Structures are given as structure tokens and as C-alpha cells.
């Protein structure tokens, strides 16, 4: 039962990364590729109707962690106190900057929210990557199964490292690049004209950074977390996950050259999903590795009672099927390109 919930939670989190990934990515590239007010409104228009739904996948994943792995939820969230709170503030800033920007058109209002939207998305992407890297690297859990990490100490790996060290920052940068590419590909699918061309060029340029960082991070990660190597050695079928990531990454540049917009976006999604699932597969059965392996939280020691997990699986399946049907309906309703706002219709009288 624990393993089933491990998979469903990982699945929910992966869907969150794919969906909020392009919203975040659109934010990261917002100031970079969208030059005029009209273009910036197109970027916001491409994510407007779906972004709140996308963020719900994070809430769903959080709730599932809480109910299926209470120990992980409690130890992990209290140990990562400061970075989580910073993530919450960034989520607030990103949410309101999208929400509020459209209300007024003014030379002091729009740039302020554009800047906040872009910078909060930028930092969120880095923090998400660093958070994942912390889980991979392991945390100083002790016999009480609690820990507390400062934001940073000396940026070196070792016993007294903080949330941010060179490794977690490196993964944060990879996340930033990958999400920027994903967002650019999304905006490209949803727009036409100059913006469409610029996002394509941007994605192709960032691709090289993503590829280089992926290779570097993968090499380093195998050294830092030995469990990953032994999992892949023990279960050869697990190779499908990294293969998916590599195929996705190759697909992105291939489809970009062929100029197939939707396929390029899907390839980037496959890359992100492949990376996420590779990490998750590599860590199993650990859910939060400790520096001292004795104290690691695993699927077995962190899971809730079996009755609750069984009942939960029933409503979860039902709920996710419903959610999937809403999403298909919503995405179909808003499919196609966003029209450029015409200069004649002012947003307000």
C-alpha cells in the first residue's frame, strides 16, 4: 500500500511540474522574450485561464503527502521551514502579479507586476530545483526523525551544510533552464507572430544549457546519492525513466528544427517527466534520505495506517478521474492561439 501511494504522489507531483512548469517558465521568460505591452498580455493570456488549476496539483500532492506519509510531511516541512516559507511568499507574489496586472493600464502599474511576475517565477524555479536536490542529497535527520536546516552555511557539501550549497544551487539552475525552455515552448504553441518566433529561438538557445547542465548534474548526483546507482543496477527496467528523459531532450531540438510546436512542447514534457521519475525511482524506497542512513524516512516507516491508505486510494482514484476530465474540458475550451490584443479596444473606459 505504501508503494502504491509513493507512486500516486510521485505522479501527482510530476503532473504539477509539467503543468505549473510552463506557467513558471512563461514567467521566467516574460521580460526576456515579450517586449511590448501587447506581447506581455499575450503571454499572460496564454496561461490565464489554466494557471490556478495547474497550481492545485501542488496542493493535491501536499495533501496526499500529509495523509499517506504523515511522518514525511511533518519532518520534511518543519525541517525545510525557511525555504518553504520563501516558496509560499513567492507563490503569493506570482499569483497576485498575474491577478492584479490586468486591472489597470498605466505606465507605473504594468511594469511593476511584470517585474514581480518574472522575478518570483525565476526564484521559484531555482528554489524548486534546490528543494529536489536537498531530498536527493539527504538531510540531517536524527533518532527523533526531525531536523532543521538553515538556508545556507558555507555552501559546501558536508555535515553542516544548509539548504543551499553548490550542488543544490547547481540543480536549481538546471531547473531554471529546463523550466524556461518548457515555458518558451508553451508560449510558442499559444502565440503567433514575432513572439512565436522569438520564443522558438529562445528555446533552441536554452536547449544547449539544459543539455549541458543535465549531463553535469546527472554525473554529480550519482556520486552524491549511492542509492540511485544501486537501484538502477538492481532493476534494469528502471532504465525507461532516464531513456524517456534523454529521448525527450533530443526530441525538443529535433522538433524545434522541424518547426513542430506542439510536439516540441510534448518532448519537453517528456524530458521533465523522465527526470522527475528517474529521481523518484532512484530514491525508492527512501522518501527522505538522512545523512546517516539509519534514520532515513522510507515508504515503510513514514506511511499512515493501512485502512486509511486503502480508503484514500478509492477516493483518490475517483477524484483524479474527475479532475482529469475537467482539465481535458478546460484545455479544449481554451485550445488554439491567443489573439493579439487589438489597439482599438482599451481594457477600460
Amino acid at each position, binding site marked *: 500500500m505504501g508503494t502504491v501511494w509513493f507512486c500516486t504522489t510521485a505522479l501527482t507531483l510530476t503532473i504539477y511540474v509539467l503543468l505549473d512548469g510552463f506557467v513558471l517558465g512563461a514567467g521566467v521568460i516574460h521580460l526576456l522574450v515579450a517586449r511590448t505591452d501587447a506581447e506581455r498580455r499575450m503571454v499572460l*493570456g496564454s496561461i490565464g485561464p489554466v494557471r490556478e488549476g495547474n497550481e492545485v496539483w501542488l496542493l493535491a500532492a501536499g495533501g496526499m503527502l500529509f495523509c499517506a506519509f*504523515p511522518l514525511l510531511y511533518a519532518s520534511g516541512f518543519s525541517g525545510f521551514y525557511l525555504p518553504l516559507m520563501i516558496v509560499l511568499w513567492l507563490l503569493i507574489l506570482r499569483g*497576485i502579479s498575474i491577478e*492584479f496586472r490586468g*486591472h489597470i493600464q498605466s505606465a507605473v502599474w504594468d511594469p511593476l507586476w511584470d517585474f514581480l511576475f518574472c522575478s518570483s517565477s525565476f526564484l521559484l524555479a531555482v528554489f524548486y530545483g534546490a528543494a529536489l536536490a536537498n531530498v536527493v542529497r539527504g538531510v540531517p535527520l536524527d533518532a527523533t526523525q526531525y531536523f532543521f536546516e538553515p538556508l545556507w552555511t558555507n555552501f559546501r557539501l558536508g555535515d553542516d551544510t544548509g539548504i543551499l550549497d553548490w550542488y543544490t544551487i547547481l540543480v536549481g539552475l538546471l531547473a531554471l533552464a529546463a523550466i524556461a525552455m518548457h515555458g518558451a515552448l508553451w508560449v510558442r504553441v499559444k502565440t503567433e507572430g514575432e513572439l512565436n518566433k522569438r520564443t522558438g529561438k529562445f528555446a533552441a538557445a536554452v536547449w544547449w544549457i539544459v543539455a549541458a547542465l543535465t549531463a553535469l548534474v546527472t554525473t554529480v548526483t550519482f556520486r552524491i546519492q549511492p542509492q540511485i546507482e544501486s537501484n538502477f543496477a538492481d532493476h534494469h527496467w528502471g532504465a525507461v525513466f532516464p531513456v524517456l528523459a534523454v529521448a525527450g531532450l533530443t526530441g525538443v531540438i529535433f522538433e524545434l528544427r522541424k518547426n513542430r510546436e506542439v510536439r516540441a512542447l510534448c518532448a519537453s514534457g517528456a524530458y521533465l517527466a523522465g527526470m522527475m521519475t528517474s529521481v523518484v525511482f532512484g530514491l525508492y524506497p527512501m522518501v527522505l534520505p538522512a545523512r546517516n542512513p539509519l534514520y532515513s524516512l522510507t515508504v515503510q516507516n513514514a506511511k499512515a495506517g493501512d485502512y486509511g491508505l486503502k480508503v484514500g486510494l478509492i477516493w483518490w482514484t475517483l477524484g483524479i478521474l474527475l479532475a482529469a476530465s475537467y482539465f481535458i474540458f478546460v484545455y479544449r475550451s481554451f485550445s488554439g492561439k491567443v489573439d493579439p490584443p487589438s489597439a482599438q479596444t482599451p481594457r477600460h473606459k
Partner: protein
Amino acid sequence: MEQALDANRLHFGFTITYHYIFPQLTMGLALLLVYLKTKALRTGDPHYDRCAQFWARIFAINFGLGVVTGVPMEFQFGTNWAAFSRSAGGVIGQTLAMEGVFSFFMESSFLGLFLFGAKKLGRVGHWWAGFLVFLGSWLSGYFIVATNAWMQYPTGFAVGPHGEIELADFWSLVVNRWALWQYAHTMLGAVQTGCFVMAAVGAFYLLTARDEKYGRTFVRTGVLVGVIAACLQLFPTGDSQGKLIAQNQPVTLAAMEGLFESQSGAPLAILGQPDVEKRRLDNPLEIPRMLSFLTYQEWGAHIKGLEGFPHDLWPDRVSLLYYSYHVMVGLGTIFIAVMLMAALLLWRGTLFESRWMLWLLMLSVPLPYIANTAGWMTAEFGRQPWLIYGLLRTAHGASPRLSAGNVWFTLIGFMGMYAMLSILFLFLMGREIEMGPEGHDPHDGDAAAHELPAEAGD
């Protein structure tokens, strides 16, 4: 970790109180929006569609702020209350996760369609989008109340070998009898906020002689629904909540009422200041024997005062609990009076000309917010010293490794951020109300289309 405990309590109390400013309006408005959309569908009168469009814009601002201030809540159980989450996550995680899976997905998906898809969906389709937003937000309220109700009145659990509290009976968690009454009471409170806000905006338009057709619809809708909600708030829902507390949290009842001495034929205190050190109520204004009657329907019934309970079972903030409860009940009574008067004038056809009544409706707008907040404070202070009533004390629930300094850091951060949000919120709300229902291009079709290219949906 004494200091950290207080900081953690203030942290949760501040963020949840601030958060609840927004959902209480959106849950109430969601019902009124469905009412307006139904009217539009049945009469075919586009006036009601335009009314709904106006309120959808107000709804969207509040919903957006409700989401961004609500996300931190789900994380704070783990960040600040790790010991509590560790022991009870297997139970309350269920209802919280169900909220995400069943209500948030529905709410957010269909709000997008409701705001941006009016043209695309057609009249009936748009009604359904509005209805599903309503259903999603009311379901979300249910899961939250069920979570809180379980902490007030835990049922359907078993305690495991390491002291962890595990789910043993799903249905008694989900249809906890405490949850049913608490839900009805909470939602009526939200409906009253929606009604007072709608009536106040309508009264403002009538008093300033602008958008009068809309003003009349807003006042009429607010008063008609509001008078029903105000009465049901007191009876049966408030009454039943009180009886549940008398049965299951008798020490809370004594503190709420400011009753220190156990007595037969206990009086109901209307005013007075509890002096916890001297264990008495100063300057009391009381109705003799009334508390006994309300609680047990017998004038002479015996009610245990605070002194009848060991001191370590007393709620630790007796005065605050007493005041929150009295503010809630006092305001609830005022709402019944205001709404009944307005309904009477509406029935006689003179409401829209009664300027004093319109003034009263307009100025009442902060009161339901205060009453709802005071109601939740009553529930939460009343549960003390327990986090889960009878099972886990608040003092044992906080995150053990978290220092007071770190909690203060983030609390101050939230205070600063929320101060900024408040200014923006009031500014934007004022602007929408100033712009009015006709302020937006009527050919736009979609509410909030100003945010996106007008044809975003096509």
C-alpha cells in the same frame, strides 16, 4: 520552547484569520451568483446577466486573494505543527487531501470557464460553470469544517502502537455530527457576508443615485437571502452548536458564558468583563436563569461553572473566548434585527426610498466579517488547551526543532506581505465598485475580459 509555542499559535491564528476574509465572501457570493444566473436563465432578462458579471469581477478579486493566502495554510500544519501532523496526519490529511482533489480542481477549472468563457459556453453552459464554482467552493468549506470538527470532536480513529492516531472509520470522520452543524452554521455566516456586501453596494448606488436599477436588484437580493440566513444562523444551527458544546466541551461553555461558579438556574450574561484572577464577572448585565433554559430547556437546570473543573482543563484565554463569543452572538442578533426591518420595508415597497435603512445597510458591511471572525475565534479558543480535544494538547503539537526566532521572522514577513495585499485589495475593490456594473464595455461579453485579450476563449 514556550516562546516558540506562542509564536506558532499567533502565526497560524494571524494567517488563517486573514485568509478567511476572502473565502467567507466568495462562498456567500457563489450562492448569490447562482441565484442571479438562475434568474437570468429563467426570465431571459440580460439585466441579471450583467448583475452576475459585475459580481463575478468582485468574486474573482476575492477568489484570487483567497487562493494565495490559502496555500500557506495547507503547508503550515507541517512547517509549524509537525508534532500534531505526525500524530494525526493519517486522519486530518484525509479531509485536507480530499479538499484538494474534489473541490479545488472543480473550483479553479470552472472559475476559469466562468470568467473567460461566457460566449463560448452559451447561456446554459455558463450557468453550469457558475454552479460548479459554487459546488466546488461549498465542498471545500465542508472538508475544512470536517477537519476542524474532528479536532473539536474526534471520532472514527484508533491509536497505534507509537501513539499515532490512525483512521479507523472513514464515514464517521466525513459525516461527523459535529461537522454537520458546524458546517451549516459556518456557511450561513458566509452567506450573510455575501448578502451584506451585496446589499451594501446596492445601497451605495441608490444613495448616490447611480446605477439605480442594479442597486435595487442588489439590495433586494441581499435582503431576501440575508433575512433567511440571519434567522437560520441563530436557530437551529447556532442553538445546536451550543448544545453540542454543552454536552462535549462543558468547560468551554462555562468560559464562553463567563460563568465561574457552578449554579442551578444560571443567568445569561449579556455584558460584563470577566476577571479571571478574582473569578467573577464585573459589571454584569444578566438575564436570570436564561442560560439554564437555553442549554437544557429547564429554568432551574444545574450548570457547572469554571470552578467545577480542574484548572488545567480551562481554556487558556478565558477573556478572549468570552469576548469572541459575545461579539459573535451580539452581532448575530443585530443582523436579524437589521435584515428583518429591511425585509419588512421591502415587503411594504418602501425600502428603496428609506434612506436611513439604506445607510444602515451600507454601514453594516464590516460587521459580518467581524462576526465570522469572532465565531471562529470562539471555536478555536474554546478548544484550548487541546489541539485535538481530549487527545493532544496544543503545547505538544508544535514543531520541536523550530525556534521562536524563525517563526517570528516568517510571521513578520506574512504581516508585511498581507498589509500590502490589504491596500491593493481595498484599492481594487473600491475601483470596481466605483466603475460599477456598466463601467466595463458591455460588448466585452466575458467578465474580467479586461484581463485578457477579449477573444482569449476562441
